[in-house]
């Protein structure tokens, strides 16, 4: 199929960006979206034009590196996938596809479609861990049974890949789903409860400092999340936060 691409080009974080139009031909439905981008880039290089910079790595939907706002949605029109798992069969011959970086002040553009998501790392560094030394001299793993339901819920929260689609989809560029996923994972496990109060206060504090917007419960994040992280986690974060604030 033949496609028209409107791609955001921006030299670096301080430069002013703009959309460029490209036409691309002989794209097959079995190709992934990023393979389509590869084809575009190889054509650009052959013409001596600098190819489009975009983040990608594992190409199997787990590293969270790929981003891109495709036709107004993070990771494109399909659900429960990342851009690398989006296949071209979702598009029709002659379609125009608009490709932009994830946009949020907390995610400054590095170049073209690449953004800086280190704000997420800093939120995690503020408390997204259990303070246990890595000596291996802890208690036996089975000495503390954990209810299967809690363990499964903790796992579901922990499957967040940190891609930032939640922020990109949110009209407020809020990072609540991301932050809540980590807070929830630990809140649901006995190991995580010890530091729960400090963790949630510090992580939310850092989240605010990074300049993300507030949650207005539109639910866009949950729909666009490649891993289907549930809004329940945001409720849990709110609850944990309130309890922690009252405790002080």
């Amino acid at each position: 199929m033949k496609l028209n691409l409107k791609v955001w080009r921006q030299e670096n974080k301080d430069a002013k960006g703009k959309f460029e139009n490209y036409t691309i031909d002989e794209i097959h439905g079995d190709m992934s979206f990023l393979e389509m981008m590869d084809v575009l880039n190889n054509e650009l290089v052959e013409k001596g034009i600098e190819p489009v910079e975009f983040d990608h790595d594992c190409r199997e939907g787990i590293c969270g590196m790929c981003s891109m706002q495709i036709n107004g949605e993070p990771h494109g029109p399909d659900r429960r996938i990342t851009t690398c798992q989006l296949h071209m069969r979702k598009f029709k011959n002659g379609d125009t596809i608009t490709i932009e970086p994830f946009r949020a002040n907390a995610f400054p553009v590095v170049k073209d479609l690449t953004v800086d998501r280190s704000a997420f790392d800093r939120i995690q560094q503020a408390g997204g861990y259990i303070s246990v030394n890595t000596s291996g001299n802890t208690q036996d793993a089975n000495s503390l049974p954990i209810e299967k339901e809690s363990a499964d819920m903790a796992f579901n929260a922990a499957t967040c890949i940190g891609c930032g689609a939640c922020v990109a989809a949110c009209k407020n560029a809020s990072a609540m789903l991301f932050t809540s996923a980590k807070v929830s994972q630990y809140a649901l496990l006995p190991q995580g409860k010890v530091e729960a109060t400090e963790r949630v206060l510090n992580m939310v504090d850092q989240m605010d400092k990074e300049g993300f917007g507030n949650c207005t419960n539109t639910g866009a994040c949950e729909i666009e999340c490649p891993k289907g992280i549930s809004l329940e986690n945001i409720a849990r974060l709110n609850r944990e936060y309130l309890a922690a604030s009252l405790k002080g």
Partner: protein
Amino acid sequence: MGGIKTSIARKVAMALSGLFLVLFLLQHFTINFTSVVSPDTFNEISHFMGTNFLVQAILQPILIFGVIFHFVMGFILEAKNRSARSVKYGVFKGNANSSWLSRNMLISGAVVLAFLGLHFYDFWVHEMQVKYLEGDLSGLNQAGEFRYYEETVAKFAGQPIRVGLYVLAFVFLMMHLLHGFASSFQTMGVNNKYSPAIKKFTKAFAIVIPLGFVFIAIFHFINN
């Protein structure tokens, strides 16, 4: 509002003030509805509410504060949210993942706020004038009867534009509540096995109560 600094604390304050206003709305509706059923009851309750010290000196200021707080905080949050993305998307497909209502609480809220202005002017300013500036706390008209019912009816009877505005405002209030009421529970961290039921209840409330207000307005418009 200086004391409420973090995003979640602000959101919770927003939710709490919203829930308070929902309660007030319910009470307001209940009283208004009596005007359809029994003008006398309506007059009596109105007089009590209008002259009771507790209601006037304590609850009324709290309510006013609640309204102002809710909308000022709403604007603060909205401003912060907008500034979180200063370069806008070329294409943003919000409808693919969220409802128009949930994304436009500012619009529905602003319409309701504008209506509140009119409403204050219509009723509250008039009440204040009569009761506290003129010092007439009797609640009686020149004929010596309670004035509340007839004054209320007079606002609607033969006033199609005002009724139209009134209806429009309540449609927006419905839209505001359809997202806001349920949303306040999520913000306060309620998400459990009762959540589906809470959701259904809030949706029903958001539709029934504004429609009830609309009904009262149209009822008086038609019947008088």
